[in-house]
C-alpha cells in the first residue's frame, strides 16, 4: 500500500493549519528565559592548570543533566543571601533571584547579607552587575561591570557577612530590559580550589506595555 507524496504534503499543510495562533507573549518568554538563566551556575576548578579552563565560562544548569558537567566534582558550595535595594529587603530563596523594578538613572543603595554555612571558608567573593553572561575566574569575575564590592583575598568564615554598595542604573536602560546583581565566590575543599557564580537579584526596568 502506497501513499501519494504530493497529496501527503498537501494534507499535512491542511492539518497543520488547524493549530491555533500562539498564545504566549514575548514578555512571558523573556521572563521564563531570564528565570532559567538565573539558575545557571558556573563552576570551574581553580589551580594553575585549571585556571585556563576556568577562564572559559562553562554554563551549568543545576538539575538538568543535559547541560555540560561542572568541572568541580562536588558542585558549588551553596551560600544564602538577603538583598536590600533602597530599603526593600528580600531573602533569595534557592536558585530564584530577588526581583526589583528600577528606573533608568536611579541611584540604588544595595546591601547584600551573605551567609556562609559551617565548615566552609570562602577565599574570595565579588559582587557586581552583569548583563546576562556569567564568566567566573579564580582571579575575579570577567563579566561584572562594574564590580561593586569585593573580598578577593581575606578568607570569609562561616556566618553572616554584610556588603554595602551603591550603583546608579544607566540612564540609557530601555523598558523591558534588566541588569543582574551577581555574586562570584571562590572556595577550596578536598577536591581543590573552585569558583562559582550566580545571579542574586534582577534589576528590571518596568515595561509600560507589560503587566
Amino acid at each position, binding site marked *: 500500500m502506497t501513499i501519494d507524496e504530493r497529496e*501527503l504534503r498537501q494534507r499535512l499543510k491542511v492539518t497543520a493549519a*488547524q*493549530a491555533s495562533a500562539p498564545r504566549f507573549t514575548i514578555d512571558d518568554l523573556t521572563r521564563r528565559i531570564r528565570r*532559567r538563566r538565573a539558575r545557571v551556575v558556573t563552576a570551574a576548578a581553580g589551580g594553575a592548570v585549571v585556571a585556563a579552563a576556568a577562564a572559559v565560562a562553562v*554554563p551549568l544548569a543545576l538539575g538538568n543533566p543535559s547541560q555540560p558537567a561542572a568541572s568541580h566534582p562536588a558542585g558549588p558550595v551553596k551560600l544564602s543571601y538577603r538583598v536590600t535595594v533602597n530599603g526593600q529587603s528580600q531573602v533569595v530563596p534557592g536558585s530564584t533571584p530577588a526581583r526589583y523594578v528600577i528606573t533608568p538613572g536611579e541611584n540604588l543603595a544595595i546591601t547584600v547579607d551573605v551567609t556562609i554555612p559551617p565548615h566552609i571558608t570562602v577565599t574570595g567573593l565579588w559582587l557586581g552587575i552583569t548583563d546576562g*553572561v556569567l564568566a567566573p575566574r579564580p582571579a575575579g569575575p570577567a563579566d561584572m561591570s562594574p564590580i561593586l564590592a569585593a573580598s578577593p583575598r581575606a578568607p570569609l568564615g562561616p556566618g553572616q557577612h554584610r556588603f554595602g554598595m551603591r550603583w546608579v542604573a544607566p540612564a540609557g536602560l530601555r523598558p523591558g530590559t534588566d541588569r543582574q546583581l551577581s555574586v562570584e565566590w571562590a572556595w577550596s575543599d578536598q577536591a581543590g580550589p573552585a569558583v562559582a557564580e550566580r545571579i542574586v537579584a534582577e534589576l528590571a526596568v518596568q515595561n509600560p506595555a507589560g503587566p
Partner: protein
Amino acid sequence: MERWTQTLAVLARDRAAALKRHAFLLCGDDAQAEDLVQEALVRAFARPLRAPRSGAAEAYVRVIMVNRFIDSGRRHSRWTRAAPLLRTSEVTADPSDEVVARDAMLTALSGLSARQRACVVLRFYQDLPVAEIATVLGVAEGTVKRYLSDGLSRMAARLSAADRS
C-alpha cells in the same frame, strides 16, 4: 535591548505561528504544541553562551522541538499508544468532511512512533532532505529511510481505512 532578546522578539513575532504548526503536526494536540514551542524557545535561549544567532535561531528551535518531542514520546509511550483511540471518537463525531479528513491525518500520524512521525513531518512538511533529518535526529541516513518507509506504509493503511469509512 540585549542581542538575544532582539533575536527572540523577531523569532516570536514572525515565526511563532509556523513553529506552532510544526509542533502541532508532531504532537497532534494544540495545548501540547503550545508547550512544546515555548519550551523549545526557552531552552534555545536559556544558555547564555549558546544562545542562537538570529539567522540560525529558527532552525535551532525546530531541532530542539523535534528532540524534545522524541524524548517526551519515550516517557509517555503508553499515553501515545492510547491517543489514537481518543482521536477516533472525534472523527466520527464531527460532521464536516474537511475536519474528518484533517482528523484522519492526525489519526494516521498518531499511529506512528515518535521517530517515524518526526521523520515524516521533517521530510514532507519541512521538506528537509534525508541527510539533514539524519543529522537532526542523530541517526544514519539508512535509519531515516527505514523510518520513512515504515511510517508511510502505516499511514497509508490508516488513511485508506479512514477513506473507506
